[in-house]
């Protein structure tokens, strides 16, 4: 890219959404300035860049803010789609629609059920969350089988859009396992996803940005107090 191209990411180390944005930047081999926000004392820059939601992540490209994680990832993929940089979204319109569909499904069904399961106010709510997340994970197992066609990732031979979107939850899935013993991607029930989890987590570009699981466990415990 031409000189003077500036990328900045406002984030919080414990956020799976920020992690998605960082994974996208990492897999595309992009350099950027990372700004850690104190969510209890948000910076002027954050409040000005995302006045509508006041949330992280926010990508600032040459001074112009882009908000909402999936919007950020697609923007990065479109702006930095040439010069040999890996593409996250496929070229074919139908494949792109399928990738977007599964990415939306991950947020609409998996995320909401995982949240219900971990942060539900009653035992019934938590149990309902467990049931729904189990169903969502089974559906995703089928999606991975279909999208990957026997290859390692949703994106095929290399990491794609859905891998990055799901990748944001890798650390969270691990802390749920560590704190409750519950395996969200159980190798006996969803072997393909369980293998994907290990494989994705071991990639250098993922390891470079993955938050420390123990630190996340501490954060999670603090929030429950």
């Amino acid at each position, binding site marked *: 890219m031409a000189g003077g191209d500036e990328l900045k990411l406002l984030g919080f180390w414990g956020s799976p959404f920020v992690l998605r944005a960082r994974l996208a930047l990492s897999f595309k081999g992009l350099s950027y300035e990372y700004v850690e926000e104190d969510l209890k004392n948000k910076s002027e820059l954050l409040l000005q860049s995302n006045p509508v939601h006041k949330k992280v992540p926010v990508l600032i490209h040459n001074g112009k803010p882009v908000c909402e994680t999936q919007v950020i990832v697609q923007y990065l993929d*479109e702006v930095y789609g040439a010069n040999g940089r890996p593409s996250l979204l496929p070229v074919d319109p139908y494949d792109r*629609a399928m990738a977007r569909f599964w990415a939306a*499904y991950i947020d609409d069904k998996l995320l909401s059920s995982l949240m219900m399961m971990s942060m539900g106010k009653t035992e019934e709510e938590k149990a309902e969350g467990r049931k729904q997340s189990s169903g969502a994970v089974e559906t995703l197992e089928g999606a991975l089988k279909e999208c990957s066609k026997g290859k390692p990732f949703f994106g095929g031979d290399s990491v794609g859009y859905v891998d990055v979107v799901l990748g944001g939850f890798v650390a969270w899935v691990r802390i749920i396992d560590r704190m409750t013993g519950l395996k969200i991607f159980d190798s006996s029930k969803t072997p393909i996803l369980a293998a994907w989890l290990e494989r994705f987590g071991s990639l250098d570009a993922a390891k470079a940005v993955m938050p420390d699981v123990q630190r996340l466990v501490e954060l999670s415990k603090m929030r429950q107090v």
Partner: protein
Amino acid sequence: MAEKGVKVFGMWASPMVIRVEWALRLKGVEYEYVDEDLANKSADLLRYNPVTKKVPVLVHDGKPIAESTIIVEYIDEAWKGGYPIMPADPYERARARFWARFAEEKCNAALYPIFTTTGEAQRKAVHEAQQCLKTLETALEGKKFFGGDAVGYLDIVVGWYAHWLPVVEEVIGASIVTDEELPLMKAWFDRFLAVDVVKAALPDRDRLVAANKARREQLLSA
């Protein structure tokens, strides 16, 4: 023999379905419309969208796509040479997608309670919805349409407000989008509804009023 052509599985009163129809019409694409009874979904719908089982579903040469905003982007990409739905500039595309998500997640959630409440609760709900719509309205400033001089992606995503909100206003007997509160949005409603492809796909207003009146009575008596 491979299935050819374009099919839309929809429901006559669904604002999500109409987005797909507007997008196809802007591109000049011929399609077969299949109206579903959502209480008795067809085997075809369930086969094409086993994951969410919802409408709209677009089937293009036998391949199904679900989720209206995703379908609209697909239509723009699959019929690339036709009417440009998404903005050309990546930053403008990001803004359009941002506002589309805001409308879907915040505005729609703020609008629903208006329909299910009465009295003081309803007044509060109307006020909340107006605040949300005011934020969305900022994306219209200085423009004829959200897409600029012509209808674009964001117009297609939120365009249903132009036809449906006046229906809701009639059913609940209160105003939401007024010249005083939302002047830009009100003006955009008129411009949007005057667009030929938009007009061509609108469900009958009286039928919509009757259906919504019945639905509101059902919800309030529950």
